[in-house]
Each structure stands twice: as C-alpha cells, then as structure tokens.
C-alpha cells in the first residue's frame, strides 16, 4: 500500500513565522501535490511537482513556496504565516508514468492554526 506521511497532524504557529510542512511518500511516485482544504471550498491546489527540483504553481500559490530536493519528499513553506492561512493542508502523490489514471494517494493532513 502507498503510504503518504505528513510530519504533523496539528500545528500552531504565530503570525509572521516561517512554517515548514513536510510530506514523505514511500512508493517512488514522480508526482507530488500540496492542497489546502477549507469548508465549502473543497480542495484547492497550491503547488505540485513532477520531478526532483521541479515545481509548478497550482491555483492558489500566493504566500507559499515548495521544495523537492529528493524524490520522496515534498515540503510546503509558508514564508510569513498569516491568519488566512489557517487551514487543513493535504499532501498527495501519484505515478508519473503509465497507467496515468492511477489515483492520487493522500496523507492524513496537517491542521494548521496561525494565531
């Protein structure tokens, strides 16, 4: 079974802090994704990566950056945390090769509160 592990289930940080959310997958997947989930808005894509050291902006990248130095690890960085970044953050991974229809596999999520 694919395992996507997020480093923290709950995190509380202060406004202006630099925040790191870590995600590790153990299935050698090429693709990794960061989403935020808010009530009534579903999941929105922040950033994704198709390969090591490669990143692409999703639908809501403002205020975030990412790092992918190793294939199994994808980090989300809040450069200067703000209260409107309080949310549930979900990491996912998927195969980048055939069959392309394989679903994304999700981690358990990190509930981040910015005070």
């Amino acid at each position: 079974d694919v395992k996507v592990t997020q480093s923290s289930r709950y995190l509380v940080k202060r406004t202006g802090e630099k925040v790191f959310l870590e995600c590790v997958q153990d299935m050698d997947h090429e693709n990794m994704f960061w989403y935020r989930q808010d009530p009534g808005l579903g999941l929105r894509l922040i950033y994704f990566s198709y390969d090591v050291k490669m990143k692409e902006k999703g639908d809501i990248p403002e205020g975030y950056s990412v790092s992918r130095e190793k294939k199994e690890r994808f980090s989300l960085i809040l450069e200067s945390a703000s209260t409107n970044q309080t949310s549930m953050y979900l990491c996912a991974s998927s195969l980048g090769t055939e069959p392309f229809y394989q679903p994304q596999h999700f981690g358990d999520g990190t509930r981040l509160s910015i005070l």
Partner: protein
Amino acid sequence: ELKVEQNPLFLSMQEEKNYTIYCNYSTTSDRLYWYRQDPGKSLESLFVLLSNGAVKQEGRLMASLDTKARLSTLHITAAVHDLSATYFCAVSFTGTASKLTFGTGTRLQVTL
C-alpha cells in the same frame, strides 16, 4: 475556466433510501475520480472513470460518467449509516496532465 461543481453540498438521508450526488465540470476531461473522506481522516479513492458511459460499482455505490453532458453521478442505493462521509469528485482536465480539480464535496449524513 476549469470548474467542477458538485451538488448538493449537504445531504441528510434515511437508511434504506436511494439518492444521487451530481458532479458537473466545465470542459473536456481525460478522467474523473470519486473520493471519500471520513471526519478527521484522509481522502480514499473510490472510483476512476475513464470514458463516456463508464460505470463502476462497489457495494451500495455506483458511479457513472457522461462526457457529452460533462456530468458524473454517484448513486447511493439503500443507504446505511456506514456511508456517512464527505464525497468529492475530481476531474483531470484535458491538457493538464496529472493535475486534479476538485468539487466542493458533498457531506452525506445517513440517519437511522
């Protein structure tokens, strides 16, 4: 614009009743997924629908895809309490490779 609309947002239904969740999307897609999320848990993949007319069934859940209408449905037959969860559809739009655009989710509550 790449949009996925799901309705209803909330569905309260009695056990043994049937109901349908609808997922409309804005433009051509390569494939469509249905996920389930239990409270406090992660998303679990239920179905992948690849072509027009595709139908997948698992237990009391059946998903179908009409690419001409840009519509997928998730039909629940004879609901039971264990099906209480939030259900999301997600679309891989043509030309966007492995990216998914999610619907807002439908929170299903099955009451005794």
